[in-house]
Each structure stands twice: as structure tokens, then as C-alpha cells.
């Protein structure tokens, strides 16, 4: 029979003191253990390997030597594949000028040495057209140069490095040449249909024998002119991939060598994550295995991905990953590993080159 006496009441202050001194330390310890477990598993769980988001880069080069003009690409500008970044004038304007001078002189020689009266309207018109085309090509050559000068002057003028007078001079030269090219183009466009019409009728008539050498010479001069026009036309440099202009090595007006990288385009996204299983290599992950990807940037984001490909040989670990692993980066690679490609989890939006922690789930 339990005949325990009723306990006397404990004052609240005394009860609180007991809780503080005897129960609270245990509660705080338990909460601390729980918090540690949460942070440990969510933030600093041991990683299987470190990887970095793959960076896709493409370089834009000129196949021919020349002078860079009309550079429209700026650093960090977004571009799409096929966008024109700049032009390269592959022939020196002075050489073009000289070639056109030769053609002009030869046409003049033909004009002087031929008996004009023996010429038919067709040949006369042909000579006139070629003269006008030479003039147009010369103007276009000068216009390219003026355009380049104006672009350079504009950027200098914006930066207060060029006087207003010099800038206006470059602008006026460009505008003047532009107007001349327009007029000359219209003139050529007017003569050309007339010539075509005469050519169709002249072809049916028996041609005088005296005009045969002249026509051959005209044909030769026309081909020469076409060649010069082709040489004078600048070569467009286009973006090979979608991305961002990450490097601009040359400015407008600078000479470029054949094969020299002029721009670098970096793709906006990462197609995969590259990691290395360090030596000694234990069990290699199999393609298709699940991987947890944790970003190293704060706040940490996680996503689930799969192993896409596993390398078949050991290769040097990239210097950036070595640095992330706190391993010495040496000129001669000493740390080897098996390269592993991991898919990028959807929604993780990794920056190219971003380092991530990879945790194998299986």
C-alpha cells in the first residue's frame, strides 16, 4: 500500500532554477547535436570528387592576313552563331589603288589605239562601263578606308581623345565618299542594262574582224577588274557559336596575321561537368550512376545528375581543380586521375568553369 505523503509545492523560481541548471544543458546539447547533424549533411558532407562545369570556347581567326575593320563585337557582348563580328580587308588599299590604276591605264590605251569609228556602240559602251566600274571600285576602296578611320575617330572622340575638328574631318570624308559611291553605283546601274540590251542584239550581227581583238582585250580587263573587286571586298568574321565575347585580341585598324585568334567566344551554359577520380583509383563510377551535385557558391544549391562518360585512362588533373583540392600546381603534372563527365542537373544554371562538389549516390 502506497501511503506516500503529498509533496509540498515547489516555488516557480526554484523550479525554473532546477530546469536551468539540470535540464537546460541536456536540451542545449541535444539541439546542438541535431544542428550539427543538419549542417554536416547539408553543407559539408564529404565529397567523392570535385568537378568543374565544362567551358566551351571558340576562337575566331582570319584565314588571310589583312587589316581589321568595322569591329562590331565588344567584350562580354552576347552573340549568336553567324553574327558578323568584324571585317578583314585582305588587300592593302594601296595595292588595290595600284591595280585599279593599271586597269584604268590599259583601258585608256585601248581607247586611244583603237579606231573609234570602227567601234560599235557595244564596245564603246563596254569601255565606258569599265571605266565607271574602275572609278566605283576606287571609290569603294577609299570608302572602306574612310569608314575604318571614322570608326576609330568616333571611339577616340567619345573618349575625348580627338578634337571635334579632326572627328568632323573624318566624318565629312566618309560622308563625301559615301555620296560619291552612291552616285557612281547609280551610274553603273544605268549603263549596265543598256549594255545587256546591246549585247543581245550585237551577238546576232556579224562582227567586224577589227573588233575581235578589242573584245578579247575588253574581256581580259573585265576579269582583271573582277579580281581586284573581289580582293578589295573585306572578309567577314562571323561568330561560330552562340555565346559571349570573352576575349578581344585586336582592335579596328590593326593588322592581323593568318590564323591569328582575334576573338574568343565562350558559350553561355555548360554542357557537362568534368571531374577526376584521383589515384589510387578504387571502383570507378559506372555510366548512368546517380551523382549529387553541390555548388560551392553561397547559398549552396544541390541537384541530382548522372555519370555520362567515364574515361579509360589516367590523365593530368586540371590546374584549377588541383588548386581547389589544395594540391600543388606544378609545371610538370604529378596528380593523375580518371576523367568523368557528369550531366548538368536541370535548374542548377552552372557558370562555365564553376567548381562543384560531386557525391556518388550509389
Amino acid at each position, binding site marked *: 500500500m502506497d*501511503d*506516500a*505523503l*503529498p*509533496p*509540498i*509545492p*515547489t*516555488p516557480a523560481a*526554484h523550479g525554473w532554477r*532546477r530546469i*536551468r*541548471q539540470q535540464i*537546460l*544543458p541536456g536540451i*542545449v*546539447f541535444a539541439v*546542438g*547535436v541535431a*544542428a*550539427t547533424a543538419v*549542417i*554536416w549533411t*547539408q*553543407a*559539408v558532407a564529404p565529397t567523392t570528387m570535385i568537378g568543374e562545369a565544362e567551358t566551351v570556347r571558340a576562337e575566331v581567326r582570319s584565314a588571310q592576313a589583312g587589316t581589321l575593320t568595322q569591329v562590331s563585337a565588344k567584350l562580354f557582348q552576347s552573340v549568336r552563331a553567324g553574327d558578323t563580328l568584324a571585317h578583314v580587308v585582305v588587300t592593302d588599299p594601296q595595292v588595290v589603288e595600284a591595280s585599279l590604276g593599271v586597269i584604268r591605264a590599259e583601258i585608256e590605251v585601248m581607247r586611244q589605239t583603237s579606231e573609234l569609228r570602227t567601234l560599235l556602240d557595244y564596245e564603246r559602251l563596254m569601255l565606258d562601263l569599265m571605266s565607271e566600274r574602275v572609278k566605283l571600285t576606287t571609290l569603294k576602296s577609299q570608302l572602306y578606308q574612310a569608314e575604318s578611320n571614322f570608326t576609330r575617330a568616333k571611339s577616340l572622340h567619345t573618349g575625348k581623345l580627338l578634337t571635334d575638328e579632326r572627328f568632323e574631318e573624318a566624318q565629312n570624308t566618309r560622308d563625301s565618299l559615301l555620296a560619291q559611291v552612291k552616285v557612281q553605283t547609280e551610274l553603273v546601274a544605268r549603263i549596265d542594262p543598256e549594255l545587256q540590251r546591246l549585247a543581245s542584239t550585237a551577238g546576232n550581227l556579224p562582227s567586224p574582224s577589227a573588233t575581235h581583238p578589242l573584245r578579247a582585250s575588253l574581256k581580259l580587263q573585265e576579269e582583271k577588274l573582277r579580281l581586284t573587286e573581289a580582293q578589295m571586298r573585306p572578309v567577314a568574321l562571323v561568330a561560330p557559336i552562340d555565346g559571349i565575347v570573352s576575349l578581344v585580341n585586336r582592335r579596328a585598324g590593326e593588322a592581323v596575321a593568318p590564323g591569328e585568334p582575334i576573338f574568343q567566344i565562350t558559350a553561355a551554359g555548360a554542357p557537362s561537368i568534368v571531374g577526376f577520380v584521383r589515384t589510387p583509383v578504387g571502383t570507378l563510377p559506372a555510366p548512368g550512376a546517380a551523382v549529387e551535385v553541390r555548388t560551392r557558391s*553561397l547559398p*549552396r544549391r544541390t541537384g541530382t545528375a548522372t555519370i555520362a562518360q567515364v574515361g579509360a585512362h589516367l590523365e593530368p588533373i586540371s590546374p584549377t581543380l588541383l588548386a581547389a583540392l589544395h594540391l600543388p600546381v606544378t609545371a610538370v603534372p604529378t596528380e593523375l586521375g580518371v576523367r568523368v563527365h557528369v550531366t548538368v542537373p536541370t535548374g542548377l544554371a552552372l557558370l562555365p568553369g564553376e567548381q562543384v562538389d560531386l557525391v556518388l549516390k550509389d
Partner: protein
Amino acid sequence: MDAILKGDFGSAPTSFQTVLLAMLLAFLMGQLIAWVYMFTHSGISYSRSFVVSLILMPVIVALVLMVLSNNMVTAFGLMAVFAIVRFRNILRDTLDTSYVLAAIVLGMACGTQKFSTAIIGAGVIIAVMLYLWLTSFGSRHRFDLVLNLHWARATNELPALERLLRRHSFRAQCANQHFNSTANGTDLSYRLLLRDPARVADLIRELTQLPGVDQVTSMKAEDESEV
């Protein structure tokens, strides 16, 4: 909040979670060590401030090493500063040393531009200090009262006395039981953890009214620590 968590300008960026985890683990380890020390200590020179230092010191040392972050120059700086403080002050208490070390390391964290670490570290250290103060951690207050009395009845009737003691105390431990050969009965000594320390007089009155109890004397028990 974002500005606070990204305010480290040292050579390597600091992860807020890592700092917190390191200090939390240090605190838990320190508390475990302190508990083991408290339960196993058998000497007479028990010091509460020493027990508190056992918890505080790992937390501060964890912060020290995060501030140093493998930097030899900063490590020498810490030694120099601590030596200067120690040279001008005689630190007799380990808890005083902990406080001085905490102040130095927080100053070093600010000086090495690890502002986030300084803020988080100060927060954790202050929280631990307040927790230790609030819980009076390290005090071994196991009993409030030492009660001596003479029990004139048979020993198999002691449960009647113990029922009364349990009415007034959470814990009643019989520390001494002496059979008196000259007089009938037993001299008893109990150590009590009282339900209400203000009602000792009621306890003694009820004891004296209990048949077989006489010669009741009591003595208030203090904390079992030097400091």
C-alpha cells in the same frame, strides 16, 4: 544578412556553414569533456570556472584557427599580442584567460579583414558565455541541506521517516547511519535536495512531531566548488 555572410576579405572565402559547424562541434566536444570532468572529479579542488573554461576554450580555439587559416604571420601576431597581455597581467584564472583570448581573436579577425568570421564568432562565443551563465554550468549543487537526527524506533520503521523527507525533498540520501550502543536507536545523517529551501522550518517542525525523532539539527549545504 547577405552582407554579413559575405564580409570576409581574406585570401580564401569563408563558408558561413563551415564556421558555424566548427564552432558548434567545438562547443559540443567541450561540453562532453566538461561533463566527464564533473562526474569523474574526485579531488577537493573543484573549480567551476575551470569547467566553464573547458567548454569555452575549444570554441575560442576553433575560431583562432579559422582566423589564422594557415597563415604563419598571423599566428606569430597572435602569440605576440597574447604575450603582451600576459606580460602586463597575471591571469590567475583559466576563465580570465579564455576571455582575454576571445577578445584577442575577435580583434585579430577584424584586423585580418575576416569581418563575417568575427561577427559569427562573436555571436557564438557570447551565446556560449550566456548559456554557461544562465545554467550555472559546472556548479555541483546536489544537496541543499544536511540533516542530523536521532531515530529512536526500529530501523525497519525508517520508511515512515523517509516518506516525510520525500515530501520535502526531490532527493534524500542517507549519508551516515550510526547505531548508538548507549542509547536506544540510531543517529542518522541525511543530505536533502529540497523542494522549497525556504520551508526548512516546516520540515524540522514536522520531523519533531514524528514519533521516534529527536535531536534534529540541520545545516545548509553550499555549492561544492572553490569559486
